[in-house]
């Protein structure tokens, strides 16, 4: 297992440095003077310009700048937002829980709906259930989720007035963030109605963000299950006279779920990309909306830092999924 871990890390470390180069290079390939860009929109006196040039380190050779950037990174310094003047890392940490909460709920929904859907479709291959559920999955997989979100707003917020249009919780409730997760914080606050309000705000964004992962998981579960069901050991189990239910539960399901776990892991990148759109539509104060807003405000240190942090999150989650995969599937570990 240790060897497996080391092999994974050996690939990860250069990738991480590659990501830092992309984030570092981002500001330098922007058209225009980096100092003027980093200093914001207001004009600069020539003296102030020279001072900033030196302070930001743009007068030094490129490799020296990069090393300086790396040194800052390892001390947790990702630069300062031009708009709020707060450190990028602080802002990220404040907004990240909102995205994690939304992302986790979406993944949970996608998994608990997607896996049973795919498994039953495989067991009843060719039935109307198979055709309808896989047809639905293909529609979900093809869905422009920014439009899907707008449709749900029209229906549930506009016509039915069941859910609010935007935000994480009604303005009526205020309590200091403890965990950063609104569902937990609203319960901790003890205010009646706060939890219900948080849930009603969360429900539509969760559905929107879960749509594509759910479709992918359902399709993957179905094909993994079909593959396992055609294996010899399943036929043997059937031939022994085992009940179909037991064959599926004991023999087939566990092996079928192994590739599904990888699929679920791969959806993390999909969810983060989807969060950009979902959070924009629902004004959800997470890192997806933060990135889009920062791009429009030309807040380049935030874009630079956010890019790096998001890629790092994807990388770490993928590593964890790989390790989990190795843990449950010895064949991979010993390859």
């Amino acid at each position, binding site marked *: 297992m240790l060897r497996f871990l080391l092999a994974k890390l050996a690939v990860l470390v250069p990738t991480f440095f590659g990501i830092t180069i992309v984030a570092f290079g981002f500001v330098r390939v922007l058209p225009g003077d980096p100092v003027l860009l980093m200093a914001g929109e207001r004009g600069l006196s020539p003296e102030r310009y020279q001072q900033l040039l030196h302070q930001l380190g743009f007068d030094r050779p490129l490799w020296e700048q990069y090393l300086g950037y790396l040194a800052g990174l390892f001390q947790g310094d990702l630069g300062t937002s031009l708009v709020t003047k707060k450190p990028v890392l602080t802002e990220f940490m404040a907004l990240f829980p909102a995205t994690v909460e939304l992302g986790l709920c979406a993944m949970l929904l996608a998994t608990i709906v997607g896996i049973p859907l795919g498994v039953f479709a495989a067991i009843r291959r060719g039935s109307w259930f198979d055709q309808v559920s896989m047809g639905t999955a293909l529609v979900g997989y*093809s869905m422009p989720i920014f439009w899907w979100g*707008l449709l749900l707003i029209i229906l549930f917020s506009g016509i039915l007035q069941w859910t609010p249009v935007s935000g994480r919780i009604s303005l009526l409730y205020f309590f200091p963030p403890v965990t950063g997760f609104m569902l937990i914080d609203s319960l901790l606050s003890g205010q009646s109605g706060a939890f219900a309000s948080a849930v009603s705000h969360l429900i539509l964004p969760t559905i929107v963000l879960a749509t594509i992962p759910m479709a992918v998981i359902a399709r993957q579960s179905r094909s993994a299950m079909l593959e396992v069901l055609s294996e010899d050991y399943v036929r043997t189990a059937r031939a022994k006279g085992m009940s179909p239910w037991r064959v599926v539960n004991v023999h087939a399901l566990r092996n079928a779920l192994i590739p599904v776990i990888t699929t679920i892991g791969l959806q993390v990148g999909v969810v983060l*990309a989807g969060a950009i759109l979902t959070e924009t539509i629902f004004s959800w104060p997470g890192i997806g909306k933060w990135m889009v807003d920062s791009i429009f405000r030309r807040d380049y240190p935030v874009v630079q830092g956010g890019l790096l942090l998001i890629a790092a999150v994807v990388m770490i989650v993928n590593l964890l999924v790989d390790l989990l995969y190795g843990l449950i599937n010895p064949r991979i570990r010993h390859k």
Partner: protein
Amino acid sequence: MSEVTEIEPQNAGAGRAAAFAEFWFYFRENRGALIGLVVFAVLVVLAVAAPIIAPHDPTQQYRDALLTPPFWEEGGSTSFLLGTDAVGRDILSRLIYGAQQSLFIGVVVVTIALVGGIVIGLVAGFFGGWVDTVIMRVMDVILAFPSLLLALVLVAILGPGLTNAMIAIALVLQPHFARLTRAAVMSERNREYVMAARVAGAGKLRLMFRTILPNCLAPLIVQGTLSFSNAVLDAAALGFLGMGAQPPTPEWGTMLAEAREFILRAWWVVTFPGLAILITVLAINLVGDGLRDALDPRLKRS
């Protein structure tokens, strides 16, 4: 569809027709794929014939007909079948011209990503060693970023617009082709027919492009259709975020962005562009599924 025949080893001139016949036999079994193909063909016709079919100019503003509902709704008119948007442009005409944009985006993005990915993957797989390691690490770095985020940031660098959006999306989709090509090349590289060609004195370029590549095409074709639908979706998403095609271009994502503030007042300005995106992407994905099943020999047995 003619490129499909090349999966079979070349030099089998007569074999190509047979290979296509076999492919078609399996493809037409799949009803969904056929429907997808028909819908896609209709979209192509709409796009090509847009100036003839579209009832109005897509940028013409009818100031006396702002936010007209579709003809079956109260207040609708048959001169604007699907209604008009906030500045009085005919939605149906904009949707028809939008098909041009989306198909153009798909073709350009897939072409760039496919050609780039094939060349990079061939070089990595054929040469191996440090060339392979360096190339694949660079691909890993690109894949480490969520695709839409990277495309968004690239467009922020290059400047908003359709051309830059297409470049950004192609760059983000390209590693998938590179990886697939590399994997296929590595499994083909030491086969006997490649050895034979090498012994016969074929040069490196000939080995790469004439001998090995045609035998790696099946997964690339499937990935190509997948990327086509991804490109349409991502370009629409960038347009929706204001970073893709700029108004007044009749691009479906951009139309949705312009319609956002009217969602509770005029459902049609939001519903139809999104429906157009969904139908297009769905049709391409149906074809993609059909191609995968028809080209994947493992599934043919069952």
